[in-house]
């Protein structure tokens, strides 16, 4: 305890020097944390956008559907699944869907699309696609309404209220076709999604595809996405081999991989910044150690153990590092707060951002990962930088030290 207060007081014997080191640590932390929260925000956005707007936390299909989504691969008894989902305390919300590939045509053009039949009311609390509507409205529940991407509408040269015809292979092998009227247009974070996905009422899709009451997919949200694996496992147990239960990690493996990779590369960057900071710390601590050679001599002469001197110097560095980090973190937080609500507008790159499914505005994300990266790595690097000066301080011979200068 005495050591701690001693170390603390030592820091402030040369205020200017300590302040400069603190500032450099703080600025390093501010910049790194801001960059980290922003790029993390970007990666998270990619995932959250997909999960939130369409994929949801988890999907159930007939086994094999995800790999080979043919219309014959259906859930024949949706009631059975629904009973299981309803009785599971971790499932917050679920909805039936019909999913198939088909062709959407207007008088002037046609385009291959992924046709998704949904229950508009249930989907409302399941996904956010509704919030991306830029023209017209979301599905109201009336039959033969369609909501499609603005980009697709432009390609087909159709607007609100216009007719489009969807065609797809029906379950019985015949060709199903159905008329829809454009109810709304969406513009999401992803140009790909806008060009290839359309939403229609589930009943219309079932009629068109001769499915009766069968569906292709259950999409759902769970109470705690962190326990998704466990919940999926439990559902698998209850549903059996006939169905596949796929958490979003299995549905979007590439995004999940990118997040993992991002996490690792960011740790490396913190370490690099830390190393850059180390030099300032070594210098400062070395100087402060040599300034106090006489003092160390005295301390040693009166019997202070080497180990305690080492700890004292390291503690000083730790204080420097921690203080700088905390200040930097607080400032970083002040930068983060307004950005987290307003977002950073990167419209200049909107083309590529939309092709990656990010959206043009980046909202920084502060996660436990950011906090531990900053609060642990940087102070530890500071301590590492003090090892050499501390060892020097420890090695001083008492008598020699007293005589020094």
């Amino acid at each position, binding site marked *: 305890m005495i050591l701690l207060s001693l170390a603390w007081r030592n820091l402030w014997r040369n205020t200017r020097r300590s302040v400069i080191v603190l500032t450099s640590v703080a600025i390093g932390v501010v910049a790194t944390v801001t960059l980290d929260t922003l790029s993390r925000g970007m990666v998270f956005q990619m995932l959250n956008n997909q999960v939130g707007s369409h994929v949801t936390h988890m999907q159930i299909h007939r086994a094999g559907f995800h790999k080979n989504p043919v219309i014959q691969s259906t859930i024949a008894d949706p009631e059975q699944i629904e009973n299981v989902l309803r009785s599971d305390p971790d499932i917050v919300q679920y909805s039936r869907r019909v999913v198939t590939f088909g062709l959407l045509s207007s008088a002037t053009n046609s385009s291959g699309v992924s046709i998704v039949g949904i229950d508009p009311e249930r989907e409302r609390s399941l996904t956010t696609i509704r919030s991306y509507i830029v023209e017209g409205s979301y599905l109201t529940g009336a039959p033969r309404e369609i909501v499609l991407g603005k980009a697709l509408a432009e390609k087909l040269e159709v607007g609100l209220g216009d007719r489009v015809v969807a065609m797809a292979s029906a379950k019985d092998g015949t060709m199903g076709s159905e008329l829809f009227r454009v109810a709304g247009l969406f513009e999401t974070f992803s140009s790909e999604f806008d060009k290839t996905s359309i939403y229609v009422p589930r009943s219309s899709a079932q009629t068109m595809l001769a499915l009766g009451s069968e569906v292709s997919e259950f999409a759902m949200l769970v109470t705690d996405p962190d326990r998704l694996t466990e919940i999926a496992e439990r559902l698998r147990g209850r549903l059996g081999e006939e169905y596949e239960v796929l958490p979003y990690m299995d549905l979007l493996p590439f995004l999940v*991989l990118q997040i993992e990779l991002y996490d690792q590369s960011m740790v490396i960057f913190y370490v690099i910044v830390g190393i*850059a900071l180390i*030099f300032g710390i070594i210098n400062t601590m070395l100087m402060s150690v040599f300034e106090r050679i006489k003092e160390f001599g005295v301390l040693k002469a009166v019997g202070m153990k080497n180990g305690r001197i080492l700890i004292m110097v390291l503690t000083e560095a730790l204080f420097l590092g921690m203080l700088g980090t905390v200040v930097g973190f607080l400032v970083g937080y002040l930068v983060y707060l307004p950005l987290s609500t307003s977002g950073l507008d990167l419209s200049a790159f909107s083309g590529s951002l939309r*092709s990656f499914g990010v959206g043009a505005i980046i909202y920084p994300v502060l996660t436990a990962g950011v906090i531990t990266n900053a609060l642990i790595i940087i102070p530890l690097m500071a301590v590492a930088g003090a090892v050499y000066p501390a060892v020097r301080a420890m090695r001083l011979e008492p008598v020699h030290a007293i005589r020094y200068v």
Partner: protein
Amino acid sequence: MRLLLTLAWRNVWRNKRRSIITILAVTFAVMLSIVMRGIQLGTYEVNIRHVVELFTGYIQLQAPGYQESPSLRKSFRLGPELQDALAEEDEVLASAPRIVGDGLVSFRDNSQGAILFGVDPSAERSVSTLPDKVSAGFFLSEKNPYDVVVGHTLLENLGCALGDDLVVLAQGYDGSLGNLKFRIVGAMKTGILDLDRSAVLMPLATAQELLLMEGRATMIVVRLENLRRIDQVRESLAARLDPFGLAVLSWGEVMPDLREGIELDNVSGMLMLAILILVVAFGITNTVLMSVTERFREFGIVLSVGMQTRTLVGLVVLEIAFIVAIGTTAGNALAYGINSYLAANPISFGSEFEQMYAEYGFLPRIESIILLSSFVNNTLAILGVSLLASLYPLTKILRLEPLKGIRYT
């Protein structure tokens, strides 16, 4: 002046430890920023090369308007004149004509839309790595005109196997329906989802027969020696090929999303670099400040025996310059070493990442390149920042009064 230089040099080594640490800080900053930049640009270049050599080509020659809305009608006639004109361009390593068209493939009861590629089997080897991406079976050859190589997902989705017959149906140049029966001799795994899911590769001559495109192609894919000189080559080719009425497009125009994505990533890389340099600047400020304040007493004496403040400042600036010069030189040397090593021996990620990334057509590798510009730019940046960082400590000297300096502890 000579005296000042000697004095400054000696001063640098008077406090060896501190100078060495400062030199190390500069060395580290220079090295790291050059290496970071090298890796970043290197990774871009590697990935761009990977993609363009895999499929797109560095440069594509197309009929005007083809890029916006591809169609067989926007094709052009191949001929020796065109070939010669291309060969005259020094930087062009190789070129290969291709036909790209839509079609339908059918195996037993399964039929599916496909993208048909007519490629010249031997020329293709010299412009793209497509032939190496055959994961099962083998690539096309001139000898067997009715062989096809298909994307591995397509093979799976059709439920057929190597050796099976595949019927390809397509609308030809004049809209007539052509159909030919092929033997599947290979499956390819490129990592480009569209290709793996729907590509059907056939010999160019056969595609010309199927699509009634005798002597024509929809594009010529050009391989260059140097990715960095692509803009000059593109312009020179455009001038040279003007009489043929062809559009000359670089990979960035063929794949605008990839180009923009790289630009975006580049911005974040520059930000990281800026952060690094900022941190280093503070380190240098700190060191210089400390060494200056530590020597206030000495400076006081020097000033009181008649040295001019200007000369003193000059002396300190020289000292800093020496330190920074040594640091940047060492940094450049180290960076050169590391970059050359990484360029020759790229670091692979873990096998799990490697595999997954490869499936999506990326190269998960840390690889560097040696670019003069990144050495010069980073060295200049750190030099500039170091000098800026010394400004504050120097103003302290300017304000120093001789007697006060002596008294200063």
